């Protein structure tokens, strides 16, 4: 009985605090994305127009590890029974990737464009959603930041 109460409390805590944190994170992502909109991040390699003078080219990267909350994990494991979209994990991965791109851009605030952006996703220690392990994913973004002479 005592154990059951602990589990319910943890799930409840996960639901309440987890959704507040997620909303907060999305708000911060959206406002920072708007701030950094002047640096285009593209996944092509050469769109630099002729005649521009390039003064700096260097690789930049950003990464983040984000974990899922207890409530969503239960939700996702219930989803496993019937199959279908696992919305709980979709938002987790979306947040991680957007945050990684933002961190990459924040490392090159003076760049004019970031070319060949690539995103890698990985889990730590091969178990993302097994029992007793920490459900977390890592996203990392990297690209080449280019600065023009103005």
């Amino acid at each position, binding site marked *: 009985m005592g154990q059951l109460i602990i589990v319910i409390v*943890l799930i409840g*805590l*996960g639901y309440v*605090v*987890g959704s507040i*944190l*997620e909303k907060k*994170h999305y708000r911060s992502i959206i406002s920072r994305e708007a701030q950094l909109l002047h640096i285009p991040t593209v996944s092509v*390699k*050469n769109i*630099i127009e002729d005649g521009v*003078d*390039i*003064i700096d*080219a*260097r*690789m930049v*990267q950003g*990464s*983040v*590890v*984000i*974990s*899922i*909350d*207890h409530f*969503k994990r239960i939700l996702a494991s219930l989803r496993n029974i019937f199959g279908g979209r696992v919305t709980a994990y979709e938002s*987790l991965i979306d947040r991680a990737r957007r*945050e990684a791109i933002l961190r990459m851009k924040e490392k090159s605030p003076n760049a004019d464009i970031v*070319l*060949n952006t*690539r995103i*890698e996703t*990985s*889990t*730590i*220690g*091969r*178990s993302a959603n097994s029992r007793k392990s*920490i*459900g*977390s994913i*890592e996203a*990392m973004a*990297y*690209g*080449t930041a*280019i600065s023009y002479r103005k």
Partner: protein
Amino acid sequence: MILTNIETVPGKKIVEHFGVISGSTVRAKHIGRDFMASLKNIVGGELKGYTELLQDSRDEAIRRMVNQAEQLGANAVVNIRFATSSVAQGASELYVYGTAVNVE
């Protein structure tokens, strides 16, 4: 040392190729970080300890790759790629590779 992840160094010309070079590191998380992470796992959100751990290891892998490039006498590394793999429970390998070149 100039690092890029495209085939060239924009604005410069490649004059010499030295072939593929790589650097890697295997890191395990420690119990203290694991404990904090499992507490954080209840409510979700960023696990700063893990982010730092992976970022440090990746910097280490890049340092090793750059050392190798310096030994070859290169002054730039182009077409850099990252890869991550899980070696054992709780440990991950971070691998970075690229092509060492001379630019002018």
